[in-house]
């Protein structure tokens, strides 16, 4: 396998619930940074990305239910309607639970190609709810899904690195 991260051979620390919770919290905080103007349109959805990561790597720990709860938090903070983010994130979690076996076979580049449609679907669900309620769609919003997909590889590398065991102190 030519994957840059041969996950089968790699020893990763078991992901503690605390670590998962902290990564999701960090993603929420990143989403809440004061993004403005063009940056707002380009803002990647960090929560969606971290949820994707955990749904693919730990599908028994983080699933549709946790994604939904994160969605409710995002709804309150964004002052969107209750359930708008929640609905989108539930669809996202379902999408990557469907994909998770396949994703573990692929390298990061191919993974990006796989998750882009899932992200696009998530964004489309959010936009569709908004369109139903308010009757218009801001098309710039979909740029965020492209940026999110591009960030998938760096984010995966980062989270994998954080899950590596620390280097052996006896070595020094």
């Amino acid at each position: 396998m030519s994957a840059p991260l041969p996950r089968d051979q790699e020893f990763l620390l078991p992901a503690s619930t605390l670590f998962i919770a902290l990564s999701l919290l960090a993603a929420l905080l990143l989403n809440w940074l004061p993004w403005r103007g063009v940056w707002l349109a380009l803002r990647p959805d960090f929560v969606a990305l971290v949820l994707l990561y955990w749904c693919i790597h730990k599908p028994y720990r983080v699933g549709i239910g946790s994604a939904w709860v994160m969605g409710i938090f995002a709804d309150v903070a964004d002052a969107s309607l209750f359930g708008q983010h929640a609905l989108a994130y539930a669809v996202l979690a379902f999408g990557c639970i469907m994909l998770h076996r396949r994703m573990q076979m692929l390298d990061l580049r191919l993974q990006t190609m796989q998750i882009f449609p899932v992200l696009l679907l998530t964004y489309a669900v959010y936009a569709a709810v908004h369109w139903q309620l308010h009757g218009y769609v801001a098309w710039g919003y979909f740029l965020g899904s492209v940026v999110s997909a591009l960030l998938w590889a760096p984010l995966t590398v980062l989270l994998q690195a954080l899950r590596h065991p620390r280097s052996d102190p006896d070595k020094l």
Partner: protein
Amino acid sequence: MEHTQSFRFFNRGPSPAVRLVFFILLSLLLLFVDARYQYLEFARSGISVMVYPLQRLVAVPGMLWHQADAYFVLQGNLVRDNAQLHEQHTVDAEQLQQLQVLQAENDHLRQLLAVQQRADYPTQLAEIVYTERDIFKRKLFLDKGTQANVQAGQVVMDDSGIVGQVTRVYPWLSEVTLVTDKDHPVPVQVLRNGLRAIVFGSGDTSELALRYMPVSSDIQEGDMLVTSGIDGTYPPGLPVAKVSRIERDPAYPFARILCIPVAGVDRQRQLLILSGLPKLPERPEAVAETATDKPRKGRRKKP
């Protein structure tokens, strides 16, 4: 942990598809209830209490940046600004004195005519905690909430004009819908001739549209639009927008009139919340049907 899970042949619990359907239905139910009724405001303010410290935490880097920025201002700029402000102050002071005379005269005339007095409205200074985070909706969050007696429906303005309206109140925060929000209507009057109209937000922070004005209506570029105070939500006489472009195409019944908001909708940091608006008598039901300045379907909350 990982290994015990990968040997699990039979998943416990319902399949992902069933879960998905369950959560989709739950979300749709919540969406419906939240969009149609106001039952969930309590839950929302409850969760916002938990979320609030995190939101403030996130706003810290931006605030530090602002403070650092303010610290490294050149002295030359300060001197120049100071001179400019002094000049402005002198001009304003003179106008203010004239205004006081006019105000007294106006009060007197209104008393003579037995018209209801226009009051001065007490204001509350609030700071923007953060701005639009949802690209669909241009909303602001201010750092005053129910703790500071802010109520939904209050008008928010800066030093030059109306910025928006408080649409939702949390314990320590309040959410402001901007006048530039898509389809947000504000009843206005042309300052020059008193022509009544309604200005709508266009979803863009630098543009408002004056709709349903006949091609022949007397509006010129550069006209100032002030609130008419007719619906009882906005106090009368506050500047809202300036007409920037008019397209009169005889093929259409209405002229296309674009305006620029007077207030720095996307520039300010401190805003004023107006309180104590006079209560107007209830509008008779039958008339309400034909009124043009009724909130449209898209508005979430009737102020």
